[in-house]
């Protein structure tokens, strides 16, 4: 029996990967859930990345702990849902210079001490893992735990499963404000489609999480960081076998775009296309295509995989990573507003971190202890937020 969408227990704002996992887990816990999104399902950053589930790019600390837990939760989906193209392909981080390699190896040793599998790969052995990799690299580290998924497919299946438990999903339903009672606690979510009475609101609005938080009078500093991806024509199976990336983001100081950083990231997909990234810029929500950035990404990718020079680019896309000043997400109850929880600000790691985020949020809603401490992800850790 479908929940009446006029009165539920939880309104989840955002039908991306984090919102989908939250709706799935909250509904599994027996709560009545309504998901709202001002756009279509997965129309935000979820559909604009590479679907990565990584531990390789995380230094020891709260985010790595979250990533290790979250990775295990992704595996649960293998048996539970139709195929979401979950691929335990592994990651390979390569260094072009001896200094770069030394730094990479040191970082890997630190990660290894905190639960990450990391295997050093000598220069001569790199092509055992990636036959088409260029000559002349100094070496690398193999991270067998890195994975990839089709995030839009995953979110769609999670939302469908949530709906099978009575959750309601309202796309194209913009949130206008979060209503609060005399005691300041959440009483409902006012949308363009009407008021939804609820006890809790989960802010899973990703890059727009700051706007949603402001509606409740509980600002959080989530800002956009633009990234581009090139998609090649489908290439023969086995062309690129892992997520392969260079260790350092290169700051392009000569660029006129705020803080442009690029680094080579190359990986394939289930259909055989190869995705080329990665760039980071603070340009607000500027959706126009930057051919300068695309050119840099293509050049860097060819430097790693020379055969890509002959590959046709079928299309490109861009997305806006939701980042906080300390590059950690905002997760958990907001002490300023009873009934408000946040689940946003995951920057480039949202896909991987989504299931653990949903677990923590659900545990918080149910009122028990959380599987990980939430202090590092607190919405009030920032001091004064404009």
């Amino acid at each position, binding site marked *: 029996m479908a929940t009446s969408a006029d009165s539920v227990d939880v309104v989840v704002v955002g039908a991306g990967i984090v919102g989908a996992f939250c709706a799935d887990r909250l509904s599994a816990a027996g709560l009545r859930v309504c998901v709202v999104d001002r756009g279509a399902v997965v129309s935000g950053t979820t559909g604009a990345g590479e679907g990565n589930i990584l531990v390789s790019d995380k230094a020891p600390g709260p985010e790595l702990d979250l990533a290790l837990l979250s990775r295990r939760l992704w595996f649960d989906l293998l048996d539970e849902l139709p195929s979401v193209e979950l691929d335990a392909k592994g990651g390979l981080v390569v260094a072009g210079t001896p200094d770069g390699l030394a730094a990479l190896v040191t970082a890997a040793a630190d990660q290894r001490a905190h639960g990450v599998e990391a295997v050093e790969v000598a220069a001569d052995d790199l092509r055992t893992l990636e036959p088409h990799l260029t000559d002349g690299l100094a070496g690398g580290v193999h991270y067998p735990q890195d994975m990839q998924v089709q995030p839009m497919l995953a979110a769609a299946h999670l939302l469908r499963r949530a709906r099978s438990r009575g959750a309601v999903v309202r796309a194209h339903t913009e949130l206008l404000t979060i209503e609060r009672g005399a005691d300041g606690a959440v009483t409902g979510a006012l949308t363009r489609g009407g008021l939804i009475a609820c006890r809790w609101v989960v802010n899973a609005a990703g890059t727009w999480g700051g706007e949603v938080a402001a509606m409740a009078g509980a600002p959080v500093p989530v800002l956009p960081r633009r990234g581009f991806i090139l998609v090649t*024509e*489908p*290439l*023969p*199976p086995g062309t690129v076998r892992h997520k392969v990336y260079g260790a350092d983001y290169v700051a392009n100081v000569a660029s006129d775009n705020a803080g442009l950083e690029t680094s080579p990231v190359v990986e394939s997909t289930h*259909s*055989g296309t190869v995705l080329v990234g990665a760039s980071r810029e603070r340009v607000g929500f500027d959706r126009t295509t930057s051919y300068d950035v695309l050119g840099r990404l293509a050049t860097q990718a060819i430097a790693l995989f020379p055969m890509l020079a002959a590959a*046709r680019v*079928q299309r490109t896309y861009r997305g806006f990573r939701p980042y906080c000043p300390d590059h950690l997400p905002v997760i958990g109850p907001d002490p300023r507003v009873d009934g408000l929880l946040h689940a946003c600000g995951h920057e480039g790691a949202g896909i991987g971190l989504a299931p653990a985020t949903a677990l923590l949020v659900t545990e918080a809603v149910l009122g028990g202890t959380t599987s990980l401490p939430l202090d590092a992800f607190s919405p009030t850790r920032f001091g004064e937020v404009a």
Partner: protein
Amino acid sequence: MSDGREEFTLRVDGHEVPAYDGETIAAVLVRSGRISWRRTRHGDRPRGLFCGIGACQDCLVSVDGVRGVRACLAPAFPEAYVSTDEGATDA
């Protein structure tokens, strides 16, 4: 149907096929009775013209040895050598 347009031939997979000035290669293929000229990587299903506007990448052919050409956008021209067997992609 010629309506005054120049008529010429292409070679498609080794066979001569009539074409008219102003047509796309996809139009030539479809008029010659061919509605699919690729197979999918997963499931080996037939593919040919789909969106017709250069977006879906389903209609890829090789033209004069150049792989990955969208037949729905490529103009037919005299003596064009069109191949659909080369694995224009491996998809």
